[in-house]
């Protein structure tokens, strides 16, 4: 059986895809496939991938489905473990083998969260020796979709990424459901993924809007009723407060959009156990830190 499937999503970022796939090509691990799902790029990415990286399994979604397109790749993955990356990230050479060892050594491990680092700077500021995981924090966190290994069987049981989210908070949604099944999500400092960091302000409405709307949907899909009501009051308050603080209406729009389009998650509410909500660190106020 194939061990690892790397799954990448791309949308009109050929330069980044080219750079990441070139790095992946240098990985010396035989039991591996690479899947790229193209989200309807118009910059020639699919043609270029076919010509320059013929070993890549290319899936064309046809149009921009957002993170739902990842699910096409996850479904097609033949590997026992899936390594999720962005179109501008790639794993360190030795990390794939280490990831497989960690999964093989711990059947309750659902997700290996990579240490996602800045591609341009990390090697200059890091110690030369490789750190290994020695302890685990007293609470669980989610994982970063720019570098995370997931046991496919578990990922499939939780329905892969929530397509209705379109963008952002998808990892937190999966993390809650994976923890609810009793599987561990662990950070490993010796599993490294390199990610390009856009050193510019996110003036676009997309990040604050989708982060905020999806934070509501995350709560309503996954939290037990009393927890969901409490968290909704708090998040609604934060939407009004940060709209005033940052002189924007984007958070209020996201709040109303979450309610108005609640039917999108109508058949997707599966409350997790209370202890899962209590032990996980889901920073719901993160959505208010992107705009200006």
């Amino acid at each position: 059986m194939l061990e690892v499937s790397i799954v990448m999503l791309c949308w009109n970022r050929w330069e980044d895809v080219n750079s990441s796939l070139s790095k992946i090509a240098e990985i010396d691990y035989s039991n591996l496939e690479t899947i790229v799902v193209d989200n309807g790029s118009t910059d020639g990415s699919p043609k270029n991938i076919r010509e320059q990286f013929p070993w890549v399994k290319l899936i064309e979604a046809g149009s921009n489905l957002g993170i739902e397109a990842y699910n096409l790749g996850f479904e097609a993955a033949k590997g026992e473990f899936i390594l999720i990356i962005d179109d501008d990230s790639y794993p360190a050479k030795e990390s794939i083998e280490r990831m497989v060892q960690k999964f093989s050594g711990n059947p309750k491990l659902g997700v290996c969260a990579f240490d996602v680092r800045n591609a341009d700077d990390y090697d200059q500021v890091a110690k030369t020796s490789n750190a290994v995981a020695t302890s685990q924090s007293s609470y669980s966190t989610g994982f970063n979709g720019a570098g995370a290994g997931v046991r496919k069987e578990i990922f499939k049981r939780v329905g892969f990424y929530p397509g209705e989210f379109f963008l952002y908070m998808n990892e937190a949604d999966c993390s809650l459901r994976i923890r609810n099944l009793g599987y561990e999500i662990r950070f490993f400092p010796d599993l490294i993924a390199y990610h390009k960091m856009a050193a510019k302000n996110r003036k676009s409405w997309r990040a604050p809007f989708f982060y905020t709307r999806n934070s509501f949907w995350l709560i309503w899909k996954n939290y037990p009723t009393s927890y969901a009501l409490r968290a909704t009051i708090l998040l609604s308050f934060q939407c009004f407060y940060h709209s005033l603080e940052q002189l924007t209406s984007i958070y209020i729009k996201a709040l109303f959009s979450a309610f108005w389009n609640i039917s999108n998650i109508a058949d997707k509410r599966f409350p997790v156990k209370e202890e899962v909500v209590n032990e996980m660190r889901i920073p719901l106020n993160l959505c208010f830190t992107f705009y200006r």
Partner: protein
Amino acid sequence: MNKILIVRSAPIQQLDASLSKIKQKFHGPNISILSHEHAIELLNKYECIEKCITYPFKESFDLRKKAKFDNGERFDHGVVMVGNLTGCGFQNVLFFALTLPIRKIWVCNLIGEITPISRAGIILKSIRNQAFKFLALLSTAVFSVVAFPFLFCFLKCKSSSSV
């Protein structure tokens, strides 16, 4: 040598990019970092960080939840990392920074610009924000009366099954 404390309130990836700028700004300082428990192992991988201090709470940095330092330990500068240009949305961290044993507070933004911020400025902003909080509270109350019965029904009706 300047002794500085970084408050890690932005992604580690951003710290990768900002560390060299912080070192340059403070002329090769002795660096300590305050961070949540889950990131400590990752922060131990930095060559130039002398000490990692754990913030012993799961929640975001909060004025009411203080960090613990060795007796009498003080820092010349505190650098608060913010994940955007202006620091909007990080008021809780800036307010929290007032409780730290640091002489001067700086903000390091997404592109690594490091600018000083006065204690009075933080307090004045927080006074202004109290007015916003009051208005937000009223808005939430009105909104809740309208939207929450509907939400309660939705949550109850759809709670029958679980994963």
